[in-house]
């Protein structure tokens, strides 16, 4: 075998702390290496041309590139090899940037380490064999999990692209957080006026199947052929009959039911339609609050329902959906501020969250858009807004900036002035983060035109004082303490991962960070992809985002799916297991450990032998580790290939 080695400078990223020329020189000493050189940017056009040229001139049948992580450029170089007429699997990468030059200062040690990583790559390559991908057909349906603005955008774009869409939403209605907002920044246009029509489009688009009050139960299969079980939770109302007239809610006696949609400001009825613009506009019963379901008596709704849709016997139902791709748009949740004892830990009725305040501002909210104190219904005059509640706070495990609180707080001060002209808003902030189009101008307007008083500093404590509240803060610009007596305190609570996000990630086999936000394929180059083929991200499930960014990601994810589905067949990854029949003793250990049921036991000349279902095998190699005979081997990661690497590193 003729092997060529290319050691990349990556500008100064690698060359800065690794002597790439020395590494190339060392490589020349490795078995079967006939050509080795250092190169400025291996991934660049000339860099790739250089590889192709060398392949031709030195009749290389294998190439090692020592540069960045394979997660970055492995596919790039595999294509280069194909252009040079080699098999894409006759290629190995040595990661001498992320794993060497960026983490070590000692040039000598780095150079030595880099050379060794190249050596492992060479030894591995010597064991490589040509692999060719098969093909498999794909199911061109897409599932979108989460019916917030990101999911809605993705669903509509996919449907407009001619795809069959299945939209799954946990709540009784789609709309997500945006449907709870009164107005949006920086345009101050009505949230439901711009979101409402999109929600209606969802309900009217023939390509879209909508499962609300539903959650993903399990996910099987792989890109092109996922099999998703969806749990449709009992609404205790037959939605095929329900007309959404609302008679039931009007007559329901349990009027003290906690109102989720209104963030528990005010109450609702046990049977209800969460809000006027709800999609689908169907009633559902809160089983915890319904007299019939808890005490077995009442049934007022049954009597009044003109459609006879009420079904107390209804049970959860599992629906199975076959799709080829999944877009995850499960959004975010709001930080639970009761962790802050110094802000009353939830004991003070007039210390509320920004989202609760949105509901107070909203014309369709519990107070018909009149700002009233939860405690006594009085109109507040002095209102204090505290930013960074649950953001940028290591001590409670939320070191990150939630990104949108500065903006919505400014919006809320503006709306407050509109609602109550003789009111005064105070905003405690640490820094103003307003890097969007027209965003900083908007913040300025809040201060300049609407007279919101911004105080640079944090609030240390809120203490009740004669029906009002004493806010003890600091003005760090003056270096003095500030005490403000206010009628209402609004906490700009930050964003955190949606409840159950990790559990869903585990079902989808995608990764998430320590806060529960989903990991994108690459922080810059693959913002809506995941490392699991066929699964994409949109919106705040990947990290806090405002509406424009969420919508943009919804569209981006949709276009990724449309791109994926533009082919009729997908190339299967040839890095899968295969059985050497002579060696197989039919013990079925491999079958018992395969997570995907990709192994079946077959008859071969009267003997039981394992055989791999190529389209199902995901290439984890668990079977290879389990096989007592070394009969089943994972291509590209065979025992011999791995041991070759080990032996290279541990010579004696």
């Amino acid at each position, binding site marked *: 075998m003729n092997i060529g080695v290319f050691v990349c400078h990556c500008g100064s990223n690698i060359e800065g702390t690794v002597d790439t020329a020395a590494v190339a020189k060392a490589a020349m000493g490795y078995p079967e290496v006939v050509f080795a050189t250092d190169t400025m940017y291996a991934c660049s056009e000339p860099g790739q041309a250089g590889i192709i040229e060398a392949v031709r001139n030195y009749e290389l049948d294998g190439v090692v590139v020592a540069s960045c992580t394979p997660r970055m450029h492995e596919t790039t170089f595999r294509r280069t090899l194909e252009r040079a007429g080699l098999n894409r699997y006759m290629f190995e990468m040595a990661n001498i940037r992320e794993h060497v030059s960026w983490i070590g200062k000692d040039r000598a040690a780095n150079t030595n380490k880099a050379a060794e990583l190249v050596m492992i790559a060479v030894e591995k390559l010597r064991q490589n064999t040509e692999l060719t991908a098969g093909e498999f057909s794909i199911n061109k349906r897409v599932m979108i999990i989460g019916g917030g603005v990101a999911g809605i955008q993705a669903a509509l774009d996919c449907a407009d692209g001619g795809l069959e869409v299945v939209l799954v939403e946990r709540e009784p209605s789609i709309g997500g957080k945006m449907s709870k907002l009164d107005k949006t920044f920086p345009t101050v246009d009505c949230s439901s006026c711009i979101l409402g029509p999109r929600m209606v489009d969802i309900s009217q688009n023939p390509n879209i199947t909508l499962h609300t009050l539903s959650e993903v139960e399990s996910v099987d299969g792989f890109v092109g052929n996922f099999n998703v079980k969806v749990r449709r939770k009992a609404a205790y109302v037959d939605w095929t009959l329900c007309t959404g007239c609302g008679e039931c809610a009007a007559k329901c006696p349990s009027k003290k039911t906690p109102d989720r949609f209104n963030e528990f400001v005010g109450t609702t009825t046990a049977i209800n339609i969460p809000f006027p613009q709800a999609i689908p506009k169907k009633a559902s019963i809160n089983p915890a609050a319904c007299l019939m379901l808890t005490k077995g008596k009442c049934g007022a709704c049954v009597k009044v329902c003109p459609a006879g849709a009420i079904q107390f016997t209804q049970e959860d139902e599992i629906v199975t959906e076959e799709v080829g791709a999944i877009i995850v748009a499960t959004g975010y949740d709001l930080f639970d501020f009761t962790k*802050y*004892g*110094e802000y009353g*830990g939830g*004991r003070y009725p007039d210390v509320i969250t920004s989202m609760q305040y949105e509901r107070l501002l909203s014309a369709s909210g519990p107070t018909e858009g009149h700002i009233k104190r939860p405690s006594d219904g009085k109109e507040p005059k002095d209102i204090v807004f505290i930013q960074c509640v649950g953001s940028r706070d290591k001590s409670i495990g939320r070191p990150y900036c939630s990104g949108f609180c500065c903006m919505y707080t400014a919006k809320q001060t503006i709306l407050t002035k509109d609602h109550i002209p003789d009111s005064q808003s105070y905003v405690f902030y640490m820094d103003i983060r307003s890097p969007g189009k027209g965003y900083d101008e908007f913040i300025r307007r809040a201060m300049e035109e609407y007279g919101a008083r911004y105080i640079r500093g944090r609030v240390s404590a809120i*203490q*009740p*004082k*004669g029906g009002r509240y*004493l806010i003890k803060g600091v003005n760090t610009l003056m270096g003095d303490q500030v005490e403000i007596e206010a009628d209402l305190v609004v906490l700009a609570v930050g964003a955190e991962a949606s409840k159950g996000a990790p559990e869903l990630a585990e079902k989808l086999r995608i990764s998430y960070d320590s806060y529960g936000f989903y990991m994108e394929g690459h922080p810059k180059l693959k913002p809506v992809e995941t490392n699991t083929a066929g699964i994409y991200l949109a919106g705040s499930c990947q990290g806090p985002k405002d509406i424009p960014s969420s919508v943009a990601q919804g569209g981006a994810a949709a276009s990724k799916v449309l791109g994926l589905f533009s082919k009729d067949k997908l190339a299967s990854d040839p890095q899968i297991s295969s059985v050497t029949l002579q060696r197989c003793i039919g013990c079925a250990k491999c079958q018992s450990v395969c997570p995907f049921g990709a192994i079946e036991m077959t008859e071969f000349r009267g003997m039981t032998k394992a055989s791999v279902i190529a389209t199902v095998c995901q290439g984890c190699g668990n079977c290879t580790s389990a096989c007592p005979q070394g009969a089943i081997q994972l291509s590209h990661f065979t025992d011999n290939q791995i041991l070759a690497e080990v032996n290279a590193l541990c010579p004696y």
Partner: protein
Amino acid sequence: MTRSRYAYYPGCSGQGTSREYDSSTRAMCQDLGFELIDIPDWNCCGSTPAHAVDHLLSASLVARNLAIAEDMDVDGIITPCPSCLKNLKTTQHRMLRPEFHAEVQKVLGRVVRADLPIKSVLQVLVEDAGIERIAQESTAPLTGLKVVPYYGCIMNRPPDVMRFDDPENPMALDNILTAIGIEVLPFALKTDCCGASLGTTRRDVVARLSGRVLDAAAAAGADAIVTACPLCQMNLDMRQAQINKANGSHHRLPVFYYSQLIMLAAGQLGERIGLDKLCVSPFSLLSSLGSQTGEARS
């Protein structure tokens, strides 16, 4: 409840300005079946001055008491005084660092493990005896008495060292006092600072800070303040006149130690409870309660 043995660290104020806290605490623990054994020949922990001057000195002074207690075969060390408690626990916390542990032993001149559990009397009361037990003992509940509980700043701060109750809204005192029939009013200044040891040196600071506490207590409609800290009690009680003078206020709020009220509710009176040691006399208040305790006093 298994009868637990504790090494008892009274703290210097227990022999002086807060005798009644010390004696009523001993009485209370005896009633509730704790065996308190004084740390023989204990020395002052150095209080604020020591840690304000040098952490090694402070730790070494504390460590002598720890070392003595370690030869005592007890379940732990308890003290009624939050300031002592903070010094004891902080020292233990810092001695987790081997280098510091070594330094302290060098200065102390003997070996110390610093591994005995260290708790406030209040904590063992809640955790070992339990609220129900205290309620059972209270044969003469102090019904009608309205108080605000004042924990002071360091009873459970910093939380990762003290590891007891909520640092912002502690409830231990609230629950105990409620259990013995007292009406506990919501009090926002529960953990605000009274000015602590600045009493002597910067009276103005204490007048302002303790003044706030007295004002807030009065505004809340409390008949009295209940404390768990000798320094707080001294600033609020002994200095109440000073504070009134400085602030032009006219408070006459008795400032009890919680241990006194528990004993009172248990129908106990007299020397050990030391109600007569309070500078702002509580007797008219107690007799106005008309409760048997009141009559017994009048």
